[in-house]
């Protein structure tokens, strides 16, 4: 589907990933099951899917926050001779990889007791052995990059949602990561701010050659930033392909769609209210009558 790629290009390789949570009775409920895909060096990979389909869970597995039930998550960052599987890895080794990646959480996840500049400085203070004055310069640069320098002495509580995300982005890039993860970067933002965040992301990926993995359900933003896209549905990969393939599916006329999968993706991308995603199983006879006209 994506052609043959040499191993050197693969930064993260996910194979047969499964993750379950326990329900109230302690029985496992699988949120991800048999998820397989690669992330290529320098690309922007967008993970899409309806809410509750397991996007955030997948992201948490990728960054080593959740223990997984089965499968493999192999990282091959720069300077590594071979890929290493982070599943079941101990905290100390995992931290070695975590220093190479940056994450922008859905809410920004700033440390509320620290100022904006202290938030950005913290990873530098702890993980780089450079002088205080150099840290100050880096913090200034990073805040300038996200246009938040004027707010450097504010506390997170004094910032708007979009501003928090920008600072979160500055913090995520503080250690010049190779891979950046974003969880719903434009959720809850107005269109202008959301476009600004998208542009920032593209900027970072171009200027710093970062590999980006972006979880989102905002289609405009997804098509703007993606090189390749993954569509998740019920914890499985429904389709993985280049942006152009998804654009073709989005713009296709209904009669050009051949399979249920294609119809489902088309419906998701266009937000139409009729199609395989509009489930008629749980409806009463009356409701079915209304839907079918």
């Amino acid at each position, binding site marked *: 589907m994506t052609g043959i790629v040499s191993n050197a290009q693969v930064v993260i390789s996910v194979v047969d990933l499964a993750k379950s949570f326990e329900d109230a009775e302690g029985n496992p409920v699988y949120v991800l099951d048999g998820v397989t895909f690669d992330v290529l060096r320098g690309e922007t990979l967008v993970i899409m899917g309806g809410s509750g389909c397991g996007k955030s869970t997948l992201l948490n597995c990728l960054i080593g926050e959740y223990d997984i039930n089965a499968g493999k998550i192999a990282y091959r960052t720069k300077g590594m001779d071979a890929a290493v599987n982070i599943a079941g890895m101990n905290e100390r080794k995992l931290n070695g990889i975590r220093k190479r990646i940056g994450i922008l959480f859905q809410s920004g996840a700033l*440390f509320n007791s620290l100022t904006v500049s202290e938030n950005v400085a913290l990873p530098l203070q702890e993980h780089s052995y450079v002088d205080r004055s150099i840290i100050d310069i880096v913090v200034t640069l990073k805040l300038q990059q996200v246009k938040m320098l004027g707010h450097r002495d504010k506390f997170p509580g004094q910032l708007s949602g979009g501003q928090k995300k920008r600072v979160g982005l500055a913090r995520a890039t503080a250690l010049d990561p190779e891979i950046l993860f974003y969880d719903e970067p434009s959720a809850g933002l107005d269109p202008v701010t959301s476009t600004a965040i998208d542009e920032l992301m593209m900027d970072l990926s171009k200027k710093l050659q970062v590999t980006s993995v972006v979880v989102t359900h905002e289609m405009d933003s997804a098509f703007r930033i993606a090189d390749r896209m993954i569509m998740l549905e019920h914890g499985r990969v429904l389709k993985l392909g280049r942006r152009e393939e998804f654009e073709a599916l989005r713009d296709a006329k209904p009669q050009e769609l051949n399979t249920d999968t294609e119809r489902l993706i088309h419906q998701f991308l266009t937000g139409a209210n009729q199609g395989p995603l509009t489930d008629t199983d749980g409806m009463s006879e009356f409701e079915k009558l209304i839907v079918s006209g």
Partner: protein
Amino acid sequence: MGTRATGSAGSSGSRVRAAIAAVGDWAAAGLKQVGDRVRFVGGVSQLFNETSKWCFRGMFLPGHKVGWRSLVAQTVRVGVLAIPIVVIVQVFIGVILALQLAPTLERYGQMERIADVVGIAIFRELGPLITAIVLSGFAGASIAAELGAMVESEEIKALRAHALNPIRFLVIPRFLATVLMLTGLTVIADIVGVLGGFGTGVLVLGVSPSAYLSATREALVMKDFLTGLFKAGVFGVLISMIACYEGLTVTGGAVGVGRATTATVVKSIVALIATDAVFTAVFYVWEL
């Protein structure tokens, strides 16, 4: 007749079955509760173990220093702000003890013995215990709420994602601050409690100030003071560990945070009093 007999046998059979099921449910619920308790104690012990490790590293290994700024901030929050409350509560405890004991002691004509009883009760028992209970509400609940909110806002996740250990960054300052301040507050509580008894004895019960003070001095020995302080330190460990554990394991949004604060106060008080009983028994046997 036949049908009736079957009917009644059937209903008594189903009643027996219902009774067995009820006992089964009760036993299952009981087992689950026991399981929850065991998990709680295990979790808190594990947290304490990790905390001790990070304390040790902070003291002896380079590059693992405890953040002084956050330690000072926590000390102020946990301890300094609690001083007025501890003072008020302990003064009242001194007054109450003195007034409660007065009629009995008066009957034996030993009114100045009030100083002994108040002094020993406060130094050995009520100074540390009441201060710890005040602090479990004052500091424990707010630590649990704060850490719980940090879990909910993904701050803890963000720390880990930046390869920063939440125990080192968040638990250690709260742990050290609580242990230090509970010990310090107990010293204040001891003095203030005795003053409460002194005031009552002198102003209300007519004991002469010099007699009260010399009786106190004779009754109290160093070990009364030190066992009290030792208990206070242990109480500080209990409160901070329970609060941090409850906070860090919050699930379920704002409701979960509320549940964690309540659980912290309730579990702390039970743990404090149970531990106190064990200490008192051990000190009694060892004649400390």
